[in-house]
């Protein structure tokens, strides 16, 4: 397992956001975490990437415990988190945003290569390299966020609702790209409210409800699951 989360509890003050969440992500797969608004999906990703400290439980990445490792130290280990809302630095240019993705790397040639690859994946970014990132449209910002994450050459990519607020064709494009990225060997943990699309691209899925994992299994199987259909797939 590339990532395994054991029995995680997270509290915000007195509010318990996660109770006993366990999940596993096998190397090379796309695993999705679906659930309604406020179910705890974002909280799970934040606990994994070290942005918040869980009150109980353990997170193992690549065989090593990372439960109390600060977020910035995980990037160089190959864990990259694209946050909800994309986390674009609107005061920097598109080009500078991309460069920040490679902040922890020192291999100039490798960085240049990955940068080229990211720009091939998202040609629209190339046209806007000098532009202020704040002037990008929502879809372009999402492309930038993903492209920037790729520059850290992640082994595990955490994506928090990449399709949120995007026009349907763009949603389609983003999911195609997620699949493409996975095709080149990057493992993906994908958080989505768009359960249809997420289950269609993922290998495995977990369903989160009020801070608990209520269902898990192969994505295809959950796509057929009557409860899931009813709750998340609109009948």
């Amino acid at each position, binding site marked *: 397992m590339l990532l395994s989360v054991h029995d995680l509890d997270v509290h915000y003050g007195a509010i318990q956001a996660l109770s006993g969440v366990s999940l596993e992500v096998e190397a090379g797969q796309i695993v999705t975490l679906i659930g309604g608004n406020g179910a705890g999906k974002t909280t799970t990703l934040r606990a994994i*990437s070290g*942005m918040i400290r869980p009150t109980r439980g353990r997170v193992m990445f690549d065989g090593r415990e990372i439960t109390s490792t*600060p*977020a*910035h*130290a*995980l*990037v*160089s280990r190959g864990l*990259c*988190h*694209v*946050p909800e809302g994309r*986390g674009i*630095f*609107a*005061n*920097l240019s598109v080009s*500078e945003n991309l*460069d*920040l*993705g490679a*902040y*922890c790397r020192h291999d100039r040639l490798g960085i240049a290569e990955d940068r080229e690859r990211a720009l091939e994946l998202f040609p629209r970014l190339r046209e806007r390299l000098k532009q*202020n990132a*704040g002037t990008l449209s929502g879809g372009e910002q999402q492309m930038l966020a993903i492209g*920037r994450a790729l520059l*850290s050459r992640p082994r595990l990519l955490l994506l928090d609702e990449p399709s949120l607020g995007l026009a349907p064709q763009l949603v389609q494009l983003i999911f195609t790209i997620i699949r493409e990225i996975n095709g080149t060997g990057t493992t993906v943990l994908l958080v989505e409210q768009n359960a249809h699309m997420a289950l269609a691209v993922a290998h495995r899925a977990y369903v989160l409800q009020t801070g608990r994992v209520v269902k898990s299994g192969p994505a295809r199987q959950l796509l057929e699951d009557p409860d899931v259909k009813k709750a998340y797939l609109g009948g």
Partner: protein
Amino acid sequence: MADFLQTLLNAVTIGSLLALVALGYTMVYGILKLINFAHSDVVVLGAWTSVTLAVVLLPRLGVGLEAGSIPPVWAGVLVLVLAMMICGGVGFLIERLAYKPIRKAPRLNALITAIGVSLLLQNVGQLQYTIIDNQSLETSGLMQERGTDARTIRLAQAIELEEGTQYAIRLYRIADIVRATEAIGHPEAEAWKRYVTERSALPSLGTLSDTRLRLSPRTIVPEVSGRFEAGSDIGIAQPIGRSETRDAVFELYAISPHPPLKLPFGAMPQRIPELLPQKTLVQHDFTTEIAQADGSVVRIEKPLRITLLDIVIVGTAVILMLLLELLVYRTKVGRAMRALSYNMETAQLMGIPVNRIVSLTFVIGAMLAAAAGFLYALKYTQIQQPAHTTWVLLGLKAFVAAVVGGIGNLRGAVVGGFLIAFIEQFGAYLGQQAGWQNSSAYTDVFAFVLLIIVLLVRPAGLFGSAVREKV
């Protein structure tokens, strides 16, 4: 014309100082959204550290600071660099010890902490530090003449030189003492003068330790130990010439095993030794002709002087600002700082070590403050105690500059600094032209009126909203 150009020159010099200080306020605000009230106290620390280094360190490196002598260029640069490093360290500690523990607390807490740190620095800065000097441990004796040969000194008093303790003898030319005491109007000046002419009782040797005199006595080392009666000769390590001992006073001190350290920080104003030659680089005399009522014409000659000091102040400030610009806009660390100022959480997700970058921001801000303090000390020579109004006003105006420019915006801080300086200098100048009495008394008013106007018209400052840059 001369007045106008001189005002312009003053505005540029004062503007450079204000801009340097304003940058520190704005950098910290950009990153932490914290108004670091202790920043102006770091400027004071920079000025006092410069004075201390100049008075304590330079003579020990063999740099003569007696009146009239100009130390080499490296001495000034050394003082500047060391003051910047020391203040950078203090900036680091301020952040680590005071602000970091409450970074996630409500902003009011941070504000109160900032005021607390400021008060702490002001008050610690007023303490009189006398971790005194090795040489003043004990005055054991006084000698007034050379002995029978160049390697002995005849004692005027009986003394005891203990075995195992190192001693030093300082040799002061009385002529130097007289000149130096007279130059600064020292209370003992008369007594020394009388001593020369009348050979009256020797004035108190306490005079000699007054750093303002900038006496740099020759030090010689006695080679013997044991008890010596008055009138006996004791051997010394280095030979001394007859001319050196004619009309000289000797002091004998025990040297402590600790390295010398006397910090002239404190509640009393201090004067920084001259680190720069008082050179006028450009002088141009302007003649104004004023027609009198009776038809005659009076010619007034007024010079415009650009001094080396002006050039050094503006030059140093500009160099530092360009370096900062390069750091922030052209390096990886600078990119990280700008990212951090926009969103600290996401910056962490890029692998940016947030704490380290925040520390660095404080260190750089404090270094710029130190440089401003150093330049301020060169310009105004008389350094006031740390809580003095001049410092409070300097800090306040720099803060106003940062706000006027749009706090959080680097270029805004620089523009704000120059703007404030121009407004206050030209306000006073125009006031004078218009025949106001004592118009320079209003300089501070102009600065704050500008603040009020800018806050009314553009609450976010000149660069506050137009550019979303926020370091």
